[in-house]
């Protein structure tokens, strides 16, 4: 079976609630069949609006949404055949778990035997067999969550939408649910559109991530690329930790540029700068800067330790470096632990390829 790379297509979609502010601006997004795509962004960035438009609860102000090649903007939600898991689960409180799961099948006039079979299968998929007669209020948060997932999948929808489904769970449960949802997706191959503001959730679960900000997709790529190669300073800031230097490009070559900071110069990888004189923000991941590097690195500086915070598996060191006292280093907790003391001077080095010169903040 060949997968349709444009199974869900947002085609130049705009959305405005009040006719003055665009919540979603010119959205162009293709989602492949069977893909797990995450819409990630801060609150108010338009990601939930996109999901609601896809589900049919909001209509695009301009543009079209296509599902498997068909325009769905005029199809009401109940005819779209899209499963949805809501933020607060939205289980029907007056129905048992069985009735909740049977609801989408009953409205489709499925035979009773068939319903039983499908409900059984869906419940065993989320390992909740035997919970059929419970009421939602008798379930824990995690169990309710799994019922909600099972209910969204039980009628074999082509697409399942998840709107911050794990937001209300505690950290450990959230992590185990992340893997569970990911495994369910892998085993049945349904297309999942997932909305979250939690970047680690997005990185763990998705095939691709669309980072939203200000109604626009800032970057759409797989988790590794998103983390390693952010295309602008918003993405770099939003995904993972980040050290930044603001400066001006004084020299630029094909894969290297020289950036002048307040009172020093560093070498960086030109991503969104094109010419001399441009303002830029250089972004560097904390784990890419090393203390006393053995290999030759093209950026070598000395900084003073301001603060040492022990995190168990790693130690976080805040340095005063190149005029900024917010430079963070992550030192793994290994057997060859360095002696790190406050107000000690240390040598720091990083490769210019890891220091990405992006648009100025």
């Amino acid at each position: 079976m060949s997968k349709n790379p444009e199974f869900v297509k947002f085609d130049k979609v705009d959305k405005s609630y009040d006719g003055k502010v665009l919540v979603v601006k010119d959205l162009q997004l293709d989602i492949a069949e069977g893909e797990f795509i995450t819409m990630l962004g801060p609150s108010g960035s338009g990601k939930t609006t996109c999901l609601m438009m896809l589900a049919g609860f909001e209509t695009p102000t301009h543009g079209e949404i296509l599902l498997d090649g068909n325009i769905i903007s005029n199809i009401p939600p109940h005819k779209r055949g899209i499963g949805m898991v809501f933020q607060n689960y939205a289980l029907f409180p007056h129905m048992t778990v069985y009735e909740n799961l049977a609801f989408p099948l009953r409205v489709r006039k499925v035979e009773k035997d068939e319903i039983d079979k499908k409900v059984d299968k869906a419940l065993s998929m989320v390992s909740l067999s035997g919970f059929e007669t419970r009421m939602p209020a008798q379930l824990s948060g995690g169990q309710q969550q799994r019922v909600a997932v099972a209910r969204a999948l039980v009628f074999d929808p082509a697409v399942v939408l998840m709107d911050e489904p794990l937001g209300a769970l505690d950290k450990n449960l959230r992590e185990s649910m992340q893997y569970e949802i990911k495994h369910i997706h892998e085993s049945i191959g349904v297309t999942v559109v997932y909305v979250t503001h939690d970047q680690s959730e997005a990185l763990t679960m998705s095939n691709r991530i669309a980072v939203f900000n200000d109604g626009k997709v800032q970057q759409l790529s797989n988790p590794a690329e998103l983390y390693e190669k952010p295309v602008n300073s918003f993405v770099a800031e939003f995904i993972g930790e980040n050290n930044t230097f603001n400066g001006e490009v004084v020299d630029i070559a094909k894969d290297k540029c020289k950036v002048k900071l307040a009172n020093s110069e560093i070498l960086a990888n030109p991503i969104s700068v094109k010419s001399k004189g441009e303002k830029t923000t250089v972004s560097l991941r904390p784990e890419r800067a090393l203390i006393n590097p053995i290999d030759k690195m093209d950026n070598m500086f000395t900084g003073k330790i301001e603060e040492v915070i022990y995190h168990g598996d790693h130690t976080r060191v805040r340095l005063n470096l190149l005029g900024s006292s917010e430079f963070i280093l992550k030192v793994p907790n290994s057997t060859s632990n360095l002696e790190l003391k406050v107000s000690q001077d240390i040598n720091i080095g990083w490769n210019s390829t890891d220091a990405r010169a992006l648009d100025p903040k």
Partner: protein
Amino acid sequence: MSSETKQILTTDGIPLEVSLKKAEKKNKIKAFLLVAPLLLFLIITYIFPIGDMFMRSVDDKMITNMLPKTFKAMEKWENLDELPPEEVFSAFYFDFKLLVKKQEQGKLGQRLNKEKNGFNSITKKLLRQIKRKKIDENANIKEQLMKVHKRWRSVEYWQAIKRTAPPYTMAKYLKGMDMYFAPDGSIAQVDEDRRIHRILWLRTLEIAFFVTLFCFFMGYPIAHLLATLPMKYSNLLMICVLLPFWTSLLVRTASWMILLQQQGLVNDFFVMIGLVSDDNRPEMMYNKVGTYVAMTQILLPFMVLPLYSVMKTISPSLMRAGKSLGGTPFVAFWKVYFPLTIPGIGAGCLLVFILAIGYYITPALVGGASGTLISNQIAFHMKTTLDWSFASAMGLMLLTGVLVIYWIYNKLVGVDNIKLG
């Protein structure tokens, strides 16, 4: 677990239960003191008056106190189909004489007349005979009394006196249902053309039922709108719903009179748009229509508020979930939203129905003859006929009816399912 549980001791060696009780005691006293004023208030203003009402409604002691010797003597009267023995006659004569001295014989005549027509005139006749000293107290009183009037020779009248002997009677309750104690003590129906109470009871139930129904059909969409509209609009709408609460009931009823009368605004409007001709204006007041319209409007907030408070708690995502799972808007409403509002529907309907069943001012003003309710009849007996015991009896029948409805509701829906807010 073993059957005998081991007593747990605190570190000081006091049993845990004792220690717990001691610790809780202060809180319990505090809690009781907090509710004590309310308890006292309820006893004084609710339980005591209802008890008093009940006593009044069954009280028949007056006559028992008036004829003590007679009733004592009547205990020996065995064959009730024949006239009582001489002792009863003489006891009645002396009781009556005592009443004449206290000038209370009139009350006795009235009371006995209610039991059996004709007593009034024969007691008056007996009074005249006593005043003229025509009765020889040393001779056979039975003989002399039987000569006073022929009715004193009729066994039915003596049976009627005997029936008034018990200090309590259910007669008022029977009267409230258009029934009475027949001379032989059985329960009989009032003649068909004089059955007014049963019609009133049925009309009260009918009007209360339909007013509840109208309130439900009008209140449900309003409550839904209130619960789903954005704050700034819902506040305005809420004020509109509550506005009637801030206006005097009398003013509201009076304004309905202005609107509904034959020369009123609604009729004027109907004539203007040509719905009815000017000389054929429909009567919308002083009948059931007026009662329905005015009571529905007045009781509407009592339906809207419980519904609103329940709907407010229903997450909008539930309806969305219903739709996204494939339910049409109607199915999503009917299978998901509606069942969740049942507690509010129950509370609202019960509230409106109970208020409607005892409604008084509005039907009195706009109801006319065909639109008045049982409460108007109660008021009539309180104020006009001064038959308080009958008014109490009907009041208690109304209360019992409400309790029965409450009981049925509890059986069907469950009282824990009521939600007022």
